[in-house]
């Protein structure tokens, strides 16, 4: 179909009055769309899929401080998580942002200790992260759906561009899994570890672990699971009866943080270690 300048202006004029400009333009140029098929439009065929992503952590496999550090660093470097320090080099707890970190037993599982427990047990380190709850309180309270539960695989995600920074989710999360960007995180991201493949956040938004949704989409396991000591972390589909996480959770004694709150955490801690699954 061809038209002269006069005809074009006529149609464009009328259609813009009617607000149809865009549809007319695309209707007259169907070839614009035909040639363009960026690979992003379809999911990666290698993507890992599940109905309910879940994690089992066997703390007995984590023996040294280095084991914990390796896991946390793998995550934090990959996701450009800033590391704010006070002038004397300690962690700046006022600005601190963390996705996965070490917490002592008495803090990871408050009120579960007993008066006779040895200090070494009370202070036994546990890895903690977002629990990707089945019934997440953070999602319930978010006023903009900036944090939401993916219906396909249960991952609790963040939309950093929609978050208004009201921090209701931080008040609601019973696990302290969420961090807020009290200031621009850029200056606290070590250029040595900066990952140009992953966005840094802006000030004024909340962030947390995403179960490495971006890696799953590319067919890779979460970074922490890869960095963990052998048999330390399992990740899989809890809804699939044959999966490794399901087998452990079914046959072995596992505990979850604050299960009595009804949030349904998807991170399980294996008790008793040794051989499993």
């Amino acid at each position, binding site marked *: 179909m061809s038209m002269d300048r006069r005809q074009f202006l006529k149609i464009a004029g009328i259609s813009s009055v009617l607000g149809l400009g865009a549809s007319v333009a695309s209707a007259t140029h169907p070839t614009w769309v035909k040639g363009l098929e960026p690979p992003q439009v379809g999911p990666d065929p290698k993507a890992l899929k599940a109905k309910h992503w879940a994690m089992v952590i066997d703390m007995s496999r984590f023996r040294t401080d280095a084991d914990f550090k390796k896991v946390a660093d793998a995550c934090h470097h990959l996701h450009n998580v800033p590391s704010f320090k006070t002038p004397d080099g300690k962690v700046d*707890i*006022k*600005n601190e942002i963390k996705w996965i970190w070490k917490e002592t037993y008495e803090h990871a599982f408050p009120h579960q200790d007993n008066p006779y427990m040895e200090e070494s047990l009370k202070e036994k380190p546990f890895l903690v992260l977002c629990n990707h709850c089945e019934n997440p309180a953070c999602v319930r*309270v978010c006023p*903009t759906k900036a944090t939401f539960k993916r219906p396909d695989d249960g991952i609790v995600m963040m939309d950093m561009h929609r978050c208004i920074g009201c921090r209701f989710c*931080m008040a609601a999360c019973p696990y302290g899994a969420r961090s807020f960007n*009290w200031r621009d995180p850029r200056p606290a991201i070590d250029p040595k570890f900066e990952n140009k493949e992953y966005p840094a956040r802006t000030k004024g938004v909340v962030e947390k672990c995403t179960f490495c949704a971006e890696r799953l989409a590319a067919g890779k396991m979460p970074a922490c699971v890869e960095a963990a000591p052998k048999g330390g972390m399992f990740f899989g589909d809890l809804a699939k009866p044959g999966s490794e996480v399901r087998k452990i959770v079914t046959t072995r004694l596992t505990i979850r943080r604050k299960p009595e709150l009804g949030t349904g955490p998807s991170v399980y801690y294996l008790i008793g270690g040794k051989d499993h699954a």
Partner: protein
Amino acid sequence: MLEKALVGSKKYWMWVSFLGALILVGLVNYLHQFSYGLGITGLSRDVSWGLYIGQFTFLVGVAASAVMLVIPYYLHDFKKFGKIVILGEFLAVAAVIMCQLFIFVDMGQPTRILNVMLHPTPNSIIFWDVLVLTGYLFLNIVIGWVTIGSDRKSVPPPKWVKPLIYLSIPWAISIHTVTAFLYAGLPGRHFWLSAIMAARFLASAFAAGPSLLIILALIVRKTTKFDPGKEAIQALGKIVAYAMFANVFFLGLEFFTAFYSQIPGHMESFVYLYKGLEGHTELVPLMWTSSVLAVVSLGMLLFPGIRRREGLLAFAAVALFTSLWIDKGFGLIIGGFVPNMMNQVRPYWPTMPESLIALGVWSVGFFVLTILYKVAVSVREETAGIEIEH
């Protein structure tokens, strides 16, 4: 009518400029926060709400308390409130504006605030809070402006405003109930997870709001020719006494549940606030100040002999307002965050810029209040002696 706010005595202009200066100081500090981020406050990932949200919560109560004048006047035909009801409605307007500003300054990404309306999320209490607060602001502006406008012309207000007045009664209850629901439904925050939270909020609101009104009415009488009426002020004193009694009783119920059950999670925040926890006693002096002021003011208000003497009534009103401002505008919020979700004590204290921003928001509120009261008082001075049936 707004032109009445443009003429005034030297004292009036000095007061307005004083507020203007405080607003300017707040604004400069806010611009700093806007560019740097909320890191200029004392907040952290452990105590993620503080002074701003505390002030917001407290002021929702002040706003809701206008209903304590509207109910007696419009539902029970208590004529003595005829002249003073406008002061309550305009106080509600100023308080809601402060509430919205406190929410605004607390946002990490304030330019995205319309996302709350662009992506309406009914399961979030904030969505409802924004709705009811905006509606309540609108109701009180319309009701206040229309009734005072009619008074000025010495005619009864138009009939269509009556349904709005009746609607404003449940609406006032709703704003504070919804605000309580921000806190009372969060798993793991034992200090807030209490079914009595909304009732407590309303009781403290109906004590704090009318005590502020008593103070304001006395100031208005002293500085202008408009007399809100001795009996109206006395009636307010009675309302404050009842509401404060309910509030102290409700707080007692919280203590009973926490300490008779002996559940550590329920006790720890109270212990932190009133005794100190793990060596942290930052809030103890404040909370005890609040408690002492509460007992003293309630004790004074309960005796009609003391209440009837206006000087003592004013003292009790100031003491009570201060007590509840500490308890609800600060302790209630911080107590919910300490100890944190890992059961660690990480204290919070507001920084100087944060406090100046809060002061700036209060000044905006008092600026709006001054303008509105100036209009209302000017009309009242002109129509002195004329009784109009509303």
